[in-house]
């Protein structure tokens, strides 16, 4: 009988140490899960933010390009597809004006 009690005590001891080990691992699991969630959120959020940045940048570039085209036109060069870059004889072109207005 004593032998049996001894065996149970040993099992209890093992379980306690196992439980301790599990408890000590809990924060790691927690932090890994947190990390995972954060990474998941980030991986979803990133493209959206990036898209906004790309759009903003494209708009800025487009704006700059449009300003450049307007400047080019005001400096007396065609920006229409018919005569792009060629000097305008009389300082104006309906097709350039139409093109710049459409943008």
């Amino acid at each position: 009988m004593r032998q049996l009690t001894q065996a149970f005590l040993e099992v209890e001891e093992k379980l306690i140490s196992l439980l301790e080990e599990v408890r000590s691992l809990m924060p790691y699991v927690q932090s890994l899960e947190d990390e995972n969630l954060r990474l998941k959120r980030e991986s979803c959020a990133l493209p959206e933010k990036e898209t906004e940045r790309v759009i903003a940048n494209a708009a800025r570039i487009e704006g700059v390009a449009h300003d450049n085209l307007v400047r080019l036109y005001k400096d007396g060069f065609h920006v229409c597809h018919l005569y792009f870059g060629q000097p305008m004889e009389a300082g104006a072109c309906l097709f350039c004006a139409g093109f710049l207005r459409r943008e």
Partner: protein
Amino acid sequence: MKILCSKDILQTGVNTVQRAVSNKSTLPVLQGILLKAEKQTLTFCATDLEIGIRCEVAAEITEEGSTVVPAKLFSEIVRKLPDTIISLDLNDDVLIIKYFQAEISLKNYDPQEFPLLPDLDDARFFTLPTALLKNMIRQTAFACATEETRPIFTGVLLNIDGHTIKMVGTDTHRLAYRIAEIPNQDELQFNGLIPSKTLSEIYKLIRDEDEFVNINFSDSQISFQFGSINMISRLIDGQFPNYNQVIPKSCDTKIYVSVDSLLDSVERAALIARDNSYANIIRLAISNRILKINKVTEIGKINEKLDIKMEGKDTLISFNAKFLIDVLKIIDCEDIVMEFSGSFSPGIIRPLNDSNYLYLLLPVRAT
């Protein structure tokens, strides 16, 4: 070839086809007029290879044949001939012109060398009322470019789509657009660029009594037949740009003004503007239902004031006076509507209550 005809008949034929005679041709025979006597018809024919004109007149022909007379000399001779019956008699390559007891001998070109005008046999065909065609030419061809450096703008776009006919001319500074309905042409489709020179010659040659103009066209050529005249022209190669996107769809300022008053004012201002470094530029100042045109130059100054009806914002806008005068002269209407969107966007001019015509004019960035 032996012909008897009046001086008048000769004069008519020569005057009609002379517009097509080449004046700088490398091919000498093109500086001539082909005369062809067949049955009881004398045909005059000239071409510079861009345009060809043929004119048929009735004559008393006793011997058929053909020859090519030197155009300039022959037309001067014809003009100076007495008003009587003239006899033309071809002897090898010499044409003998007889009247009263006198005669002139003229060395001619070989008719075999004269290019045949194409007949456009397999062409498609349609008919337009003369008055409509004339009016459409008058309202659009003037806006075309004259410099040959930009070939597509030296022509008027003719577009026919079933019942609708459109003509558009532009030199990239202004654009004239005219649309009309034509009856009984359900299946007809045409899109081609006709040299404005061709159209203005047609305009000059068509008489009001020619009720209809018969038009034949292929992919590269178009011919117009009216009265005793047949005119053939090449079509201009190339794609006419999309003109729709240059026409603004909205405006900030709209004014209603009498054509005659505006034309008079602009013409007077242009007189003062002429002697100026900004040649012929006039500025319209629109505010408080008044249109002002003020111009100060070294030779003098002018203050024009017109009462107008207006909607929208006040505005200042400068135009080349000639481009404004051009359109005011061809608008068949007492009043026009002008639409502006600031000093830099094109202005639109339309006849009041008529959506079939539109003129677009770019402002000039002026002082």
